[in-house]
């Protein structure tokens, strides 16, 4: 396992640096210059993170490996596919969490307590990170059998658009049960949380959303692991 992790780190660490630099720089420039109010700026940073990081991380793990032809060699190793996927998932999680963490730290240093209390900033980035991770797992599972990084990226963008539209549908009409929103990766982030703040709807219990998201993520991961095992059988 450590060897697998080292391999993923060796291949993907530049993306971690890239994500940290982009999100950190965006947060620093925006919050230092106060071009917009702090909450809007953090919303922009979070939105960029939620859209960019899952695509960037999920497409580079399995589809890129397949595109380069190295996945066959990897699966031929005397290691369970689930372990290979676990190491890739761990790296993907790092790719999603690391830049969001950097952006949160930069935001706290640049604007902590200025317009928003520190706790609110932390909660803001934490909920955005949950959404990022949820989207990453969705993309990881759905793109695992795609032959190239480009196709995986297209599917990832499509999935992103789907969930944005689905969240809008789940969040707004009163005919949809409120709890149904918990299945959306965006259940805890700004737009839907803001509705609750403005009294338009009752807030969703955070623990419930986290439990639902964790359940979905686990199911997707197991499904992805099986698909990878099937690939091993085919190769």
């Amino acid at each position, binding site marked *: 396992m450590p060897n697998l992790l080292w391999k993923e780190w060796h291949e993907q660490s*530049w*993306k971690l640096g*890239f994500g940290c*630099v*982009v999100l950190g*720089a*965006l947060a620093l*420039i*925006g919050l*230092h*210059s*106060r*071009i*917009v*109010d*702090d*909450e*809007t700026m953090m919303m922009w940073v979070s939105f960029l993170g939620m859209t960019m990081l899952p695509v960037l991380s999920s497409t580079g793990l399995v589809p890129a490996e397949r595109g380069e032809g190295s996945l066959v060699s990897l699966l031929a190793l005397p290691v369970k596919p689930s372990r290979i996927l676990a190491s890739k998932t761990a790296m993907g999680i790092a790719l999603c969490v690391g830049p969001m963490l950097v952006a949160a730290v930069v935001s706290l240093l640049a604007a902590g307590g200025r*317009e928003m209390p520190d706790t609110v900033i932390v909660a803001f980035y934490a909920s955005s990170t949950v959404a990022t991770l949820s989207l990453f797992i969705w993309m990881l599972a759905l793109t695992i059998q795609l032959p190239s990084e480009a196709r995986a990226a297209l599917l990832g963008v499509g999935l992103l658009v789907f969930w944005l539209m689905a969240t809008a549908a789940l969040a707004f009409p009163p005919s949809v049960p409120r709890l149904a929103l918990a299945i959306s990766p965006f259940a805890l982030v700004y737009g839907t949380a803001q509705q609750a703040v403005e009294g338009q709807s009752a807030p969703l219990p955070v623990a419930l959303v986290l439990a639902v998201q964790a359940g979905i993520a686990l199911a997707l991961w197991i499904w992805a692991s099986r698909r990878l095992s099937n690939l091993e059988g085919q190769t």
Partner: protein
Amino acid sequence: MKQLTALVWKEWREVRAFLWIALGVFIGLPIAGGLEAIAQYSHRFEISASTWVLPFGGVLAVFVAVGATCRDFSGHLEDFWRSQPVGITRWLLAKYFVGLAIVLVACVLPLAIEVSIDRDKNALLLMVWFPFLWAALYGIGFLAGCLVRRTSHAAMLALAAMLLVYFLPVVIPPLQWLNVSTVTDFSVLIGQWPRVLGPPQLAFATGMLGLAITVLALSLLSVHFDWRIGSGRKMMYASISAAILILFASAAFQLGTNMPILNQLDLPKGQPIWGIHVSGVDGYVMTQRPDSAHGELEFNFRSLKLADSGIELGNPVGVGQRFLYDRGWAQEYAPGQPNTAYYVNFVGKDDKGTLWLNVAQLDKGTDKPALRIWKYEQYSPNASWPLLYASGDRLYVIGARLMILDITQPLMPRVISDVPFGYSFGWGSFGNDTFTELLPPVPNLSPTERLQAVTKPFLRLEGDILCQWLWRDNVAVAYRLTQLTDTKAVFKKIGQYKPTLLEDIYGASNPLDLELQNGLLYVIQGYSGHGTMNPHISVFDTHGPHPLRLIGHFAAPGVRTVCPLPDGRALVGGDKLWLIGPPPSNGQ
């Protein structure tokens, strides 16, 4: 010559597919749109090619250039070409000009068709000046292809550079002359021909031509000396994100907040400030009541004191909705008593009724009718909503009648004169280079006071400077008073400010309100009702050789109102109450 013809023929064969595709998009789709319009609502066939050429012309230029270069630089094709008895410069130039001709024909031909068919002739400006931009973008794509030599990577790199060409001039003022929007003045009416030739257009064309020649020279040198850039995913990610960060940092440099927060006061959630009035160190704020329903806002009055220790707010007193607009059409304060206000309201049914003068005690949340003014019927020739103006111990009600009231006892105004007057307020020629306003001949008021009375509701007047935002044209204008007599005031326009595209993106259009104090014009912008459109204040200097120079910016949550103080500081109300310092170049 024969060799050159062969090269041109070969290039034409390779890139002509782009021409057919582009003509299909730039002419075919607009024709379909025109036919659809005829079927639905229009009686005249018009073709709107510019809506396609404008956004995609640059992309086409990049694709053609990258396609032309990378095709012959891939694999062994380059070795083949270098082994041929053809000068590399001649070969490259043939490639360059054939591709450029394809781009220009594909973009200009649809625009020419549009100009010849449509009544709107604005596409002529695009037809004349945008080829310089497309040539520059084509050159950038050509250079990217020569250096990178991988189609997708070169295209991404060139598209990132295209972003910079489009937007750097927007965000960096010294590059403003290269901004594409400076060559397009679409303000002419349908049927009229736009003014094509002017200094901004020539400057733009020169700049773009210079850029195109430079990148062509670099392309030739790069091939001649075999310069290459080893591209990969890392470089692609880095170049695109760097371009975006450069644009964002430049925008932040231009529009970033530069007015320091000296003090701030948190407010309970859901109780933002909508109005501030300060006289000396005392005043009040109007805060939204927490029980306000959406669309029917109720307000609290809270007294305000500016102390050395900070800002102190008094307890909330419910005052409903009626005292919010402290400088509205017909509202006035008792001189020296900011908590006592007079306002006019309409009592009646539908459009017929009576106007009443009321006296309000803001700090107590009470008001009472004090005087019946006159009958009011909307749309009738005699309809006249009055102006209120207080001076010394007199309150003037100016309109269809002139009523002068004694306000020695502010809560009990007493009529001392009531005569027919026939004054009706209007700013018909406002916005022109000069305009004249007739002043109401109110006895006992000086010309300056008469001018203050008529400007108070809508315009901002300080000394001889008058400012306002022209919503129709989305510009701020400044006038200087050039003549003031008992009966009229003449103003001459001295400055105008139109927000840049970047400022529009950041919510500069449709300001909520303006304040003028200390020679600074404070404009509240970006408020959308929910604070999501970048609510902020822009500050303009009305003095100096170029009046209405943007010198300050302050963005904060839910900014709705500003009250400049005589010492240069300003109170800003929104989701919090901020006391901010002056912009850095104030008074310089």
